[in-house]
């Protein structure tokens, strides 16, 4: 999957661990003589940032296009050049955030090292990313569920993508459980724990879950004894930073 679609800000290596700051695309008001495609790009990014901010605060259902326009500083006519309705804007924002989260976690996961450790580091990246921006997390994990079918489909796709990443590298190093769906179960358990925290408003300290999540994630692949060792190693990673 391409990691920088042309309609999104490219990833900035200096940017830190959190989600991209979509607001940095804001341009000076009035006549600035910038090419129209730059203006359009900036408008789009501002609308995405605005829909995240407003729906995290008010909830998706209560969010009106007028709210988005006000926060983004974009006119109604320009808005409809980019998005046909509220849902299209919201989904585009969610997709941009999701791509940033999973794409960058994938890059961390792909760094050289022993497989269990790579998996734990990728997981830690995701926990930090989610904890760093409560608005983005609220939108992706809670508000997304409130828009109907499209969200369930996207959940399914993202879930499959994470499962495939785990399975891709797990297979050569370990005998899988003698029952099917090992990676599904592992990823599902991690998702449920994270969702449980986020849905009860505890997203600030997700990294604290790392040791027990590492254990649950690795269990189907390496067995109980080795998973316990990885749990200890994960606690060490946390303690050392």
């Amino acid at each position, binding site marked *: 999957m391409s990691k920088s679609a042309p309609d999104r800000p490219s990833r900035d290596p200096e940017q830190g661990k959190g989600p991209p700051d979509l607001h940095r695309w804001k341009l000076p008001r009035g006549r600035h003589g910038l090419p129209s495609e730059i203006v359009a790009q900036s408008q789009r990014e501002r609308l995405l940032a605005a829909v995240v901010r407003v729906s995290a605060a008010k909830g998706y259902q209560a969010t009106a296009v007028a709210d988005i326009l006000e926060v983004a500083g974009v006119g109604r006519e320009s808005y409809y050049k980019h998005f046909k309705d509220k849902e299209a804007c919201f989904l585009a924002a969610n997709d941009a955030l999701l791509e940033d989260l999973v794409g960058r976690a994938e890059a961390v996961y792909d760094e050289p090292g022993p497989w269990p450790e790579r998996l734990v580091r990728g997981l830690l990246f995701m926990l930090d990313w989610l904890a760093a921006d409560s608005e983005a997390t609220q939108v992706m994990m809670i508000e997304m569920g409130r*828009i109907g*079918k499209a969200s369930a489909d996207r959940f399914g796709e993202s879930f499959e993508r994470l499962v495939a990443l785990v399975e891709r590298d797990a297979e050569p190093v370990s005998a899988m459980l003698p*029952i099917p769906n090992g990676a599904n*179960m592992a990823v*599902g*358990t991690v998702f449920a724990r994270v969702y449980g925290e986020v849905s*009860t408003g505890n997203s600030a300290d997700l990294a604290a879950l790392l040791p027990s999540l590492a*254990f649950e994630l690795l269990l189907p692949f390496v067995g109980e004894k080795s998973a316990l060792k990885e749990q200890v190693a994960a606690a060490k990673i946390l303690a050392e930073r």
Partner: protein
Amino acid sequence: MRGDGIGAAAIARNPRPKSSRVGLGSLEEAGVLTPALALDIGVRSRDQRILAAMALCCATNSFAATTIADIVGEAQISRATFYKHFASKRACFDASVASFALTLEAAATEAYASGDSPPASLHLAIAAVLELLRANPSFARLMLIEVPVVDSTLLDAPRALLAKGMAVKWGTRGGFDQSSVAVFGGAHVLMAQHVVAGRTGELPALLPELVYMILLPFAGQDRALAQSGQGK
């Protein structure tokens, strides 16, 4: 609304949810609570029809996008009749969830009692739940997809009760988190993922995985694998 505690266990303790005008009594009269009733089809009473309509609308459209107009249209009742039964859309949702939770609980309890050993009972109980979900696809979607989205705390009470029961029967194993989200969350996501992928009909095939996952934190991996029927 959160205090209404709609889990089956909470309902059993407190049979009349305050926000909803329908009490357990009327559900019982309506036959909604009859175990193993195929709620998606052959609905007979008005109460049942409204609860099934709610589930169907949620399954087609999500709870958030469902309107009272959708529900009354589906149930073929008037808006006034709807409000005679339920104070709000959310109250109707909670009643729909509660009725199916009780159906699941009753079926699981009955199946569990018919087993001649704890492992056999566990298999039978999980199989009964999977079969009910398969036979009632709208309610499966309601329980597995909509409930966590609308209010994930609705599942806290029944999950905690199950986790407690499992710990008593099977003990606890070091390293594992026996909190109810850790225990049942993964199983829930696995089933939800099947439903999202349009494979509700294949839920019963998840029996070995679910036996494994539910036993895991209590009995440990080796015993969980052996009991799932797929172990060494």
